[in-house]
């Protein structure tokens, strides 16, 4: 890819950058009590679901209570990981100066230690979004998710690896920072991982003790049914988180970039890369909350530190800017986006699986479908 992926002049890029800066500033100036109330309401709901789930499982031998327990715990873990954990760790609520919601102190209900997540996600992924060979979130070091990733026979297993990653997602996320693929290729020394391993073991140990030893043991003879319920809740959270996250950058039409073209890029060009490299999902308000508002992946990647409840508010403006500058605004129903993602997983298992046009999106191919409720600017 010698030519530029971004179809704009430098002047246009700078102008767009200024418009987005102004948009961000307007929201930052408006942050206040409503944003605090929102996140605390979500936290209250999450903790209530958790308590309800744990309590129901004291009768886990009875199927209705088992089901209620699984449903409540799944919701609790999904809210904790997505709308609360992911967003708090992005620093979206650091302006509140509340130690309980501080990006550096928050820990979430999943296997991955928060400080490792902040490095690999907040820094590596959000800074080098969709730059092949730099953004390890393109395939997470185990999948082929872009045509520009060189094929080798290992990738024949692409769908199998993806399925395993989906089922074991919390552990996949926890191991992400170890950069196993770089250790195997000799780029990274195993010794560099020692401290990371220790932290992962500590965190996994605590999570396992809670979900698979203590809570089941507290329910006495129902140990196994409680354990199976907790495992199911973790699995449901894994499936959900995987699916939402894979819709963020992998649906067809999302652009990838090369290291050369992103060298010394301006802030405006960084913005454009975020917009062209991300995809949204349309849906109801509840869907957006359960997705941690990652259904507004484009807005999130432009402004990762704005509270997520602001993303739906600014989405029409971001979309209008995309139209004004002739940039794609990739969005669609969940079924469409996740279908497109699985299609890519299967296609790229093969050496020549890429379709021409996948790497360079054009605005028409990613127009909103009928499920989209965002009004189109004139």
């Amino acid at each position, binding site marked *: 890819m010698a030519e530029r992926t971004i179809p704009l002049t430098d002047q246009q890029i700078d102008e767009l950058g200024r418009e987005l800066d102004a948009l961000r500033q307007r929201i930052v100036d408006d942050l206040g009590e409503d944003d605090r109330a929102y996140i605390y309401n979500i936290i*209250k709901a999450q903790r209530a679901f958790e308590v309800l789930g744990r309590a129901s499982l004291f009768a886990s031998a009875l199927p209705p209570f088992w089901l209620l327990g699984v449903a409540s715990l799944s919701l609790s873990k999904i809210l904790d990981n997505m709308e609360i954990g992911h967003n708090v760790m992005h620093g979206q609520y650091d302006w*509140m*100066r509340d130690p309980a919601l501080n990006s550096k102190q928050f*820990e979430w209900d999943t296997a991955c230690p928060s400080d490792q997540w*902040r*490095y690999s996600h*907040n820094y590596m992924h959000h800074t080098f979004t969709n730059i092949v060979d730099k953004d390890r979130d393109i395939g997470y070091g185990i999948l082929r998710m872009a045509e520009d990733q060189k094929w080798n026979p290992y990738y024949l297993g692409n769908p199998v690896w993806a399925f395993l990653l989906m089922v074991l997602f919390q552990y996949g996320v926890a191991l992400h920072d170890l950069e196993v693929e770089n250790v195997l290729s000799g780029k990274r020394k195993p010794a560099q991982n020692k401290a990371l391993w220790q932290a992962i073991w500590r965190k996994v140990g605590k*999570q396992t*003790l809670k979900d698979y030893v203590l809570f089941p043991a507290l329910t006495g003879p129902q140990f196994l049914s409680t354990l199976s319920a907790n495992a199911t809740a973790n699995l449901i959270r894994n499936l959900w988180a995987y699916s939402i996250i894979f819709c963020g950058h992998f649906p067809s039409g999302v652009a990838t970039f090369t290291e050369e073209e992103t060298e010394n890029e301006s802030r405006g060009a960084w913005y454009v890369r975020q917009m062209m490299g991300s995809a949204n999902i349309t849906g109801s308000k509840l869907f957006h909350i359960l997705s941690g508002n990652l259904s507004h992946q484009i807005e999130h990647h432009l402004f990762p530190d704005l509270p997520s409840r602001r993303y739906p508010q600014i989405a029409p403006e971001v979309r209008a800017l995309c139209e004004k500058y002739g940039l794609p605004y990739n969005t669609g129903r969940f079924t469409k986006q996740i279908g497109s993602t699985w299609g890519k997983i299967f296609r790229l298992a093969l050496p020549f699986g890429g379709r021409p046009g996948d790497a360079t999106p054009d605005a028409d191919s990613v127009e909103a479908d009928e499920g989209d409720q965002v009004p189109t600017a004139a």
Partner: protein
Amino acid sequence: MYIRSLKFGTTEVEILMAVSAPDRASVRRRFSPRGLLPLLEALATPHGVDRYLELVHPMLTLRELRAVVTEVRRHRHAVTLTLRPTRQWQGFSAGQFVQVSVDVDGVRHRRCYSPACSQYRADGCLELTVKAHDAGVVSQYLYTSATRGLVVGLSQAEGSFTLPEPRPRRVVLVSGGSGITPVLSMLRTLCDENYHGEIGFLHYAPDAEHVGYLDELADLAARHDNVRLAFGFTRTGGGHVDGRFCPEHLATVAPDSDSRDAEVFVCGPAPLMEAVRGVFAAAGAEHRVHTEEFTLTPVVTDVGEASGNVSFSRSDLSAANTGATLLEQAEAAGLRPEHGCRMGICFSCTQVKKSGCTRDVRSGELHSDPDTEIQLCVNVPVGDVVVDL
């Protein structure tokens, strides 16, 4: 002392909360098997027990110290709050201060206040008198909006502005404006101790209306022969003393002796503290003067030019401000602070700014609140800045 907490229920945790400190250990032995707390913590991982309990009631905490406002008295220029702390409160010595945190428009603010009550106050509550500053976010919030039942964050007492043990033979307490609170606490504490030495109490205010404790001070002086009271009203005159602090003012509250053998405790504006120090220094008794500094947020005048010093307190490094970002200046000073994107998005480089003013290079916005977290990579110092790094 904590009996009121009983209303929360009957579980072990709550019983622990509901008894006063001396009984707690025995109750824990009776009701709570050793290891209950670690078990609760293991069940509540990764958030911790307090993050669940606070949603039931904000005063229900195992570890965090908080306080609830039980009484609000508004005066012309200030508000007096009575705070009942949670069971973690360890008490204070007269003259010390506490940090109170409140959420104002979604943002947590922390301010230091010296309790004005006796350290022996029978109900274990704290009395804070907060002067309403025109531009003070917290003081205006407390003055206009504090109501009974408001729960605030609280720190344990800090500060070395305290009465020595054993008590000195003679004590002079000098204050100006809202600096009255720590020395009033000393006065009330000494009265509670039936202290027999002479106490001089000299207070300066713009006018009588600005002294919220006028009646109570008169009452204390009437009940205790050893307390001598004098007021100076700098705007209206008509107090016991006129003008600025001078040796004659000192003689008014400590007439029977060479008052320079007294221990003097001063809290108020800097010129007042300097004046007192000057009088005692002239007599070679500067060591008898104990002061409590008022820290005021410095007013920023110039934004464009780099001035002042950047200090990294943990590393004990300091350098002239070059106008570059704090991250760059830290690196230039030889530090290797954790960082990531260097463009303000990843929050890897967030550190605590202890004091000083910084400008966000993205928005030009100035931040001058002390003890707040800032992103080093997008903030430049404006004047003197101290970072905890």
